[in-house]
């Protein structure tokens, strides 16, 4: 039996955008290792892009995560190979705690992609041209609401010229998990305890020792 968690069903992410379209942004950029010395994720939202956002303790106001025009943005627009590098969940946790609920990028490093799926961030892929289109729109009007629609696998924004939206991609298992709320998967994993025990019994190497 699947355990359904109704308030965790994520079909849409709607919010203003934060444009940061550079390629190959790495996990050390997003969440510098120094802050991983804290034993909890609680304050990670404050440390996102810290080395870029603060120089000699002073905020760099032109950084999209400091720029008041984008304040309160829920959707990050990134480039190719986003969040390459380490497995640190501190990076997506920091983004989440900063307020990010959806990411639109050309592509992701696999571990980061999996971490987003695990904590309920909708991370979708669109083409390079569509990234430029979205960035252009947000820079023109930072109040533009962007919509990630996981049901139709599309991204759109208010007053978009084309009615149909931009096609986006996301691994199908992740999409289903977000839509039906099973991304918060621990209760489901626990419910299969018996079958887990059967696997443990059939693994040859667990009997070798």
């Amino acid at each position: 039996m699947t355990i359904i968690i109704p308030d965790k069903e994520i079909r849409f992410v709607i919010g203003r955008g934060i444009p940061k379209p550079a390629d190959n942004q790495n996990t050390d950029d997003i969440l510098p290792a120094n802050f991983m010395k804290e034993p909890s994720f609680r304050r990670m939202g404050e440390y996102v892009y810290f080395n870029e956002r603060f120089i000699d303790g002073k905020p760099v106001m032109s950084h999209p995560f400091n720029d008041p025009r984008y304040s309160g943005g829920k959707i990050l627009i990134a480039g190719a190979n986003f969040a390459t590098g380490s497995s640190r969940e501190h990076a997506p946790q920091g983004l989440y705690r900063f307020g990010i609920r959806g990411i639109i990028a050309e592509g992701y490093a696999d571990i980061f992609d999996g971490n987003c799926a695990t904590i309920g961030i909708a991370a979708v892929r669109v083409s390079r041209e569509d990234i430029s289109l979205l960035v252009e729109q947000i820079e023109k009007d930072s109040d533009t609401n962007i919509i990630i629609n996981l049901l139709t696998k599309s991204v759109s924004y208010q007053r978009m010229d084309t009615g149909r939206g931009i096609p986006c991609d996301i691994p199908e298992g992740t999409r289903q998990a977000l839509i039906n709320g099973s991304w918060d998967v621990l209760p489901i994993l626990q419910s299969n305890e018996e079958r887990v025990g059967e696997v443990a019994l059939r693994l040859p190497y667990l009997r070798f020792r």
Partner: protein
Amino acid sequence: MSKNTLKDKVLDLHTVCRLEDGRRQVFAGVHLVHEVTSAPAFDMLRELGLRVKYPELTYAVCDHVIPTDNSCRPFQDPQAEVLTKTLEDNVREFGINYFGPGKGQGVCHVVFSEQGLILPGMVAVCGDSHTSTYGAFGAFAFGFGTTQVSHVLATQTFAMDKELKVRRIDFNGRLEKGVVSKDTALDMIRKLGAKGGNGFAYEFGGSVVNGMEMEARMTLCNMAPEGGAKSGYINPDGETYNYLAGRRFTPSDISKAIKFWDSIGSNNDAVYDDRREIDVSNLEPMITWGTSSEQAIMVHERMPAVEDYSGKAREEVEKAYLYMGLKPGEKIYGTPVDIIFIGSCTNGRISDLRQASRILKGRKVKVRTLVVPGSESVKGEAEAEGLDKIFLEAGAEWRNPGCSMCLAMNPDKLKPGERCASTSNRNFENRQGKGGRTHLMSPYSAAAAAITGRIVDPGEYL
């Protein structure tokens, strides 16, 4: 999709079921934890009132924040002390096996490998991207985040977010003197790109890999994530079994195990999603010049011209040159360095230290040189062979095991503008300390840089 590869066979063996969303629930045959990414995971367990389901399948070390010069407790850095103490409390409370100081401590991927904990055919996971190292044993191994660490602690299983494709990469030809596994890894990454492996597991093979010793294979698999591949592995063979025989956690009746291990490698009729061949015959020692692992060249080559790139790629290359303080089109050979780091989960094993010692023996270092063994066992072995004396007589620092200058989470950090010849795995901006400049290379190359104070060809000193 791939068929009958080691990845497919191992994953099928460990699949509990398909969840309703289509994802696999996968059993973790062995689970490794370190202090940094496990702390919030144990907290999640505590919050939910859960115990560790299979404590005998999880093993822990402290490595990232531990100082390697003075390990007296409490540590001078209060945050490091708290994180270490948190791990110690967690392993005690939850009944986890812990390789603490005096009990085999060291860099996680060095310790768990040498203890014989990783066996062919396992699914091995850890909250650390370089978990791919264990692929050298013919395990399907990869890193993931802290929430999944908590899932494995609570259930010994996790949900696989997507199925990886398999790219078979054959390394053929003959390696020149002074050219080693690290060089082949950097060569592969520059050819296939730092994001070339996204969506793939890399299966390494070919005559060069077949001829590699286990520790060289670990270096290659360790670097797979730097090429974008979450996992890298090598089919197990006689070299694997010889390495495993007699280690602390290796099965005592190895013959029974070998029957299974022999069956788990990719079949002859395996289907791959992609195949590549890399000829290493004319490969020189590889050095990274930029801030991505793909920004690597052979030691006698010139750094690329900015004009070779366009658009966003050009901006990135220009940014890398600015950060690194280097000029396009110039030679990397002869670039002065300020500090040398020999160690890490990539190159902190005994064979790496032996390589460094061959060049340092009877010579003096020109710049500050840190030699950091990957584990207490590596340290003991090196000292029994007298390598510590070679390093100390050369003027290098001989440290205690830990991650040290790989990642700026302990006292060993670069200062702004300092240039480091490093055997670690990442050359991102600020990786080794804010404003620090990293050149990735092999232990031979790093040792040659130590005695000359410059990036040079280690072949000249062998």
